[in-house]
């Protein structure tokens, strides 16, 4: 299918949508709910109702938010609607009309009050570094550096995925990368607000992060969270000309290709899960696979549903806040498919995917481990 997609505004695109249902067949949340209103074409219809002033309740509009913004729909849309843009615009419109689910207001309040989506004290952002035995005294916070590692809220605060941050700094240290983190100076990138339909609420966080990055004089920003990377590429990049914004796998693949990442043998069989925000939404398919191929002894069994057809983990688009049970159902389905490869470990490249898939594995595939690729690479470090 042709790569070009379009978004000419909600009114035009709701008319252009053919209601053919191609999207319905690939939508993970439609599969988990089963009602037409929870299919992408149903959500377009709902948007049309909202725009036309037909009375719709916020409960009915919740369908618009029971969506992980995974873009599987965009992939197959024959009228080539950029449905990711569509969902973001439709959510913003619903929020403007006070039709958004109430839970999302909490995320916004947390970011406004504390600088992170969880509402934790923001100066504990580098807490994970404090737990490391071998962290330097400055806890990786330097005045200037070539590379700035933007850790992101979930990696910084969620214990399940804090090891990703530890692993990444170990890998960068081993490769002698000149890098820094922002610690308590980092604030939420704004992604949870963007997908909550609050595009006018993340202006402050963008300004604050931009100021910090400029002060560090970094020429590359690296993210282990694909959603942060996407947000930075879409909302920050135009203010930082010449600054590269890379996912951890892209940076590590460069280092590996340059021979700066010596890796030990790992005799393990794994499968790889393409995170939606890294792959379909972010366009990164090869770097993680190059890295897995660089680990001696590692056997990769690719799932049938991979790359552009990769399955969503259920955790994107603020779904955990809106409908945690549905998020779980989607995760379980995805884990089942990945576990069917026979691999004992699911590797992914996103902290949110690690969290949701781990919970899915606990339920449906208890023997299967879920790891971020950065953690796996750190285990292979010589």
């Amino acid at each position, binding site marked *: *299918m*042709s790569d*070009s997609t*379009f978004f000419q505004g909600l009114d*035009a695109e709701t*008319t*252009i949508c*053919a*209601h*053919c*249902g*191609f999207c*319905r*067949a*690939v939508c993970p949340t439609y599969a988990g709910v*089963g*009602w*037409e*209103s929870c299919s992408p074409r*149903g959500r377009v*219809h*709902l948007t049309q*109702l909202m725009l036309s002033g037909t009375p*719709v309740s916020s409960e*009915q509009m919740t369908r618009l938010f029971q969506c992980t913004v995974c873009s599987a729909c965009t992939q*197959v849309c*024959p*009228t*080539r609607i950029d449905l990711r843009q569509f969902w973001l615009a439709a959510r913003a419109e619903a929020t403007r009309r006070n039709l958004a689910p109430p839970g999302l207001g909490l995320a916004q309040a947390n970011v406004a009050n504390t600088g992170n989506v969880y509402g934790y004290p923001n100066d504990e952002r580098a807490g994970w570094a404090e737990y490391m035995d071998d962290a330097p005294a400055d806890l990786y916070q330097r005045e200037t550096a070539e590379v700035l590692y933007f850790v992101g809220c979930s990696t910084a605060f969620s214990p399940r995925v804090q090891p990703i941050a530890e692993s990444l700094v170990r890998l960068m240290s081993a490769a002698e990368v000149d890098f820094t983190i922002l610690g308590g100076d980092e604030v939420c990138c704004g992604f949870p607000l963007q997908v909550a339909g609050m595009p006018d609420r993340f202006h402050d966080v963008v300004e604050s992060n931009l100021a910090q990055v400029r002060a560090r004089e970094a020429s590359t920003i690296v993210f282990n969270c694909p959603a942060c990377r996407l947000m930075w590429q879409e909302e920050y990049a135009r203010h930082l000309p010449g600054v590269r914004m890379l996912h951890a796998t892209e940076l590590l693949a460069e280092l590996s290709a340059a021979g700066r990442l010596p890796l030990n043998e790992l005799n393990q069989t794994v499968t790889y899960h393409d995170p939606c925000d890294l792959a379909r939404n972010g366009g990164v398919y090869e770097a993680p696979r190059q890295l897995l191929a660089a680990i001696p002894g590692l056997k990769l069994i690719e799932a*049938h549903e991979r790359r552009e057809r990769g399955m969503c983990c259920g955790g994107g688009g603020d779904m955990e806040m809106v409908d945690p049970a549905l998020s779980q159902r989607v995760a379980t389905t995805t884990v089942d498919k990945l576990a069917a490869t026979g691999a004992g470990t699911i590797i992914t490249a996103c902290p949110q995917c690690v969290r949701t898939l781990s919970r899915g594995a606990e339920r449906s595939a208890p023997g299967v481990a879920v790891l971020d690729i950065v953690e796996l690479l750190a285990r292979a470090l010589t």
Partner: protein
Amino acid sequence: MMPIFDLPPDRLTEDLVERTMYARDLAPVPEIMTRSFFQTLPDAIVRPANATQVADVIRQAASLQLPVTPRAAGSTSYYNAVPVRGGLVLDVNSLRYDISLDTARQTVRVLPGTTWFELDDTLRRQGAAVRSYPSSAIAATVGGWVSTQGHGIGSLQYGAIADQLVSLQVVLPTGELRELTRNSDPPLSWFVAAEGTLGVITTVELGVRPRPAAESHHLFSFDDLDALGTGVQSLSHSQPRPYTVFFADAGYLALLERAGFHAPGARRQEAGGPPPASRLLSPASYPAGMLMVSFQGEPAAVNQGRDGLARLPGRELPSELALEEWSLRLYHLRNKRGGPSLLATDIWLPLRNLAAYLAGVRKLAVRSRQQIGSYGLAITPEWGQVMSIYPTDERRTAAYLAAIGFTKRLHDLGAHYGGRPYGVGLWNTPYLSRLFSRTDLRELRRRKALLDPHGIMNPGKLYAAPFPLWPVTFAPAATALSLAHTTFLRGERRSP
């Protein structure tokens, strides 16, 4: 309030917003044409989880004489799956997967809500493939295609879906669950193209083919429609039989560029930018037509098919373009981006008249100043399925309503060349006399009366035109609307 059906609560809804989503299909129709005459809004939607639940629902609906409209992907456009007398919409999409391949017999059993893409994808992992599929394969379900005409990609080599069926499990309008074969009473053939009017299909067993060992796709462009017509006809008779033959005219290519896509075989536009408006309106800038032919199967047969192409009139385009066209075979709807709305007639046409029909469409387009594009497939050596599409804008209700009337002009043109509408539903009932002989229609009505004496299954479709679609009321109304449409278009083109 709906009577309480014996279903878990998450399998029945009366939510108004939800119901509006089941009151439409592909073609948006202004309320004046729907709500004034029909009850398109269902009273409730049920979503049974298995055949037993389908049977329970149908039994209870039968006892209440409540209309039931089966709906799968809803990828049809004649209101086939939209109720016209309210009642229940029975959403069959939970009856999905359970794909079981019998390699020795080369057959597969599958639940009806599985899409053709999903079925083929699963079969290919097991060394088999579906024999044919509709161009809507990503959305369209197995049960939905069996219930409609069942012709599409692959039909030229493997025949209609009707020829591929081995058995069907159905729930009859009494709620009885039955296994039907070719020789059962009733036979499974009654359910082919029955559009959900005789019961609900709950399992389909059909023949498959070995996963093709080789494939070869070729794209040709033609300077005149006669050459295109000859090319399509000779390929559809040729041996080895191609898997599929797709064709399109200059109007289709022009619409593609209007929608923002490059048309294969079109002269490349100058250094970037959209093509000039004059070109969009002038199919003369495009080759008269194009044709894509695909061979699939054993390598020797595929090579033989490819060698035979040397005799084809027309210019062969580079193989990358052919491959791209093949990869876009399910994406003809991208034309809709140039609409933003698109109206269409789908016509079953003798291939010997293809060139004449396409030339007729071209003349009609010029005369009426309506941009029209046509494309389609050779389905049998003698017959093809041709879509003629034209852009419009449903947001301008009066103009859109008039544009709907224009479909009759295209249908009449198709009829002039020996064609008839492809599919019935609600909106093609005015053409019943073109679709069926009197004897055939009498037989269809006999089956309906026998199996569904209370007429609960998808009432108002297929067997008779309801008012206002009686030919005596429909024909003058559609003609007047069509006239209004062309008058309007002429006025629009004249104004700066």
